[in-house]
């Protein structure tokens, strides 16, 4: 076991097949492996964490929020200052009762009925992006970067439209959310200095929150049919609405949780269909496969690699006893290849059903709020691609993001025909 170190950067630089093979080994012979924490500038390293790699154990942990809480941090292994956690994490790093309150208010705005108009425009947005990308490719060498032209702008535009962000501010939102999501990648930040990086990170959050505060004030004055209006104007059921601060944090969370995730699901999907062209033909030939195909894309891509929980008391799971304060990291990518749950887990199969993958999180109160929206976005994206770019081909190897948290693709050159 000494050869597998999930904390080492080198591990996340391995090709996907090598990583999945290591996770298979962990599931079989060391399902509660313990690792030292990654080093983070200005933060004292904590005691270490348990890597939870089996589907059943992740399910058990995630569905017992009173035993394994999110409030000590869900998206960072080291403990961060609590203000930072709440500002950047919003509800994802809160426990009941505060989590339940925010979740109830925002759930009312994430209903299929509210999202219907957004979803209608996704198709137009996708087609527009694809047509523009085609023009660029035809004017140049016949290739374009799929991430930059299609996969990145689509989810961002959807969120901006949903929240009612004016067109003029959308470029700013993309730029600032990229900084928050950069994980300190010097290429994105344009600086090597960690002090500068931290400053840029804090400024980006502030900029997004201020934008939202401005919009909130406008929507209180003159409500429209966007989500911001619904979130700041008390709903009729119980008169509860988000405060300005909660709205700012929620918007940052949406920019983070709704953007890069969907972007990478689409990019990883394009890559998978390039590697398994017969699966593409299968889906094109049978549109009734859409529901299962979308789930399989999310299982295959697992855009969010892990979430953290912290034991609130001594508790036993899967034969292991955790102690109060133990940090557990739930590796969704490993669960999604668990051979005790999925037949031939390393086969990409658009007809796989049922598909109890944990790509949107496991059961529990934090289950992805945007799952329905993401599924619709992914379905529409691939339907538009198959229609407008049936001849899409990936050129060479994509440029992967070096990150343990996001299974990301930075750049992926594609060719038409």
């Amino acid at each position, binding site marked *: 076991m000494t050869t597998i170190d999930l904390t080492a950067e080198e591990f996340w630089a391995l090709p996907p097949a090598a990583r999945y093979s290591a996770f298979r080994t962990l599931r079989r012979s060391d399902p509660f492996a313990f690792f030292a924490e990654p080093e983070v500038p200005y933060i004292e390293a904590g005691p270490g964490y348990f890597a939870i790699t089996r589907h059943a154990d992740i399910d058990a942990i995630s569905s017992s929020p009173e035993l394994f809480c999110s409030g000590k941090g869900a998206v960072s292994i080291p403990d961060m200052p609590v203000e930072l956690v709440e500002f950047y994490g919003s509800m994802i790093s809160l426990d009941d009762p505060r989590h339940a309150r925010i979740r109830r208010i925002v759930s009312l705005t994430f209903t299929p*009925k509210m999202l219907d108009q957004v979803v209608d425009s996704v198709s137009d947005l996708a087609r527009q992006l694809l047509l523009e990308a085609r023009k660029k490719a035809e004017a140049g060498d016949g290739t374009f970067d799929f991430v930059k032209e299609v996969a990145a702008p689509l989810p961002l535009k959807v969120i901006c439209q949903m929240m009612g962000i004016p067109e003029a501010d959308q470029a700013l939102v993309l730029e600032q959310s990229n900084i928050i999501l950069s994980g300190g990648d010097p290429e994105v930040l344009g600086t090597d200095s960690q002090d500068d990086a931290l400053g840029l990170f804090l400024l980006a959050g502030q900029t997004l929150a201020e934008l939202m505060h401005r919009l909130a004030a406008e929507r209180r004055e003159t409500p429209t049919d966007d989500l911001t209006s619904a979130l700041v104007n008390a709903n009729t059921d119980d008169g509860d609405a988000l405060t300005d601060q909660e709205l700012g944090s929620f918007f940052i969370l949406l920019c983070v949780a709704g953007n890069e995730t969907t972007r990478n699901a689409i990019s990883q999907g394009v890559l998978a269909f390039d590697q398994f062209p017969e699966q593409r033909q299968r889906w094109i030939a049978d549109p009734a496969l859409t529901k299962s195909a979308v789930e399989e894309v999310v299982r295959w891509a697992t855009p969010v690699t892990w979430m953290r929980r912290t034991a609130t008391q001594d508790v036993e799971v899967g034969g292991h006893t955790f102690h109060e304060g133990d940090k557990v990291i739930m590796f969704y990518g490993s669960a999604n290849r668990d051979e005790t749950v999925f037949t031939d887990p390393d086969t990409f199969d658009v007809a796989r059903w049922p598909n109890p993958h944990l790509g949107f999180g496991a*059961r529990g109160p934090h289950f992805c709020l945007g799952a*329905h929206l993401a599924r619709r976005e992914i379905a529409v994206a691939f339907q538009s691609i198959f229609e407008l770019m049936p001849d899409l081909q990936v050129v060479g190897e994509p440029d992967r993001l070096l990150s343990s948290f996001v299974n990301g693709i930075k750049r992926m050159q594609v060719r038409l025909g």
Partner: protein
Amino acid sequence: MIARTCIVSGTCEALVPSLFEIDDDGAHVLLEPVPDNLLEAARDAADQCPSRALTVIS
């Protein structure tokens, strides 16, 4: 019964496919009232619903 807070997570369908179905319009209960043999499973789904949107009326 499914309340307005349903965000179409799909949790209920995954747990009790014979009782819940998800389509583009949202989540639907296939059998109402819930048959006795599915009552316990339905209550479990209600417990696990991330939106607390399910109420089992028996």
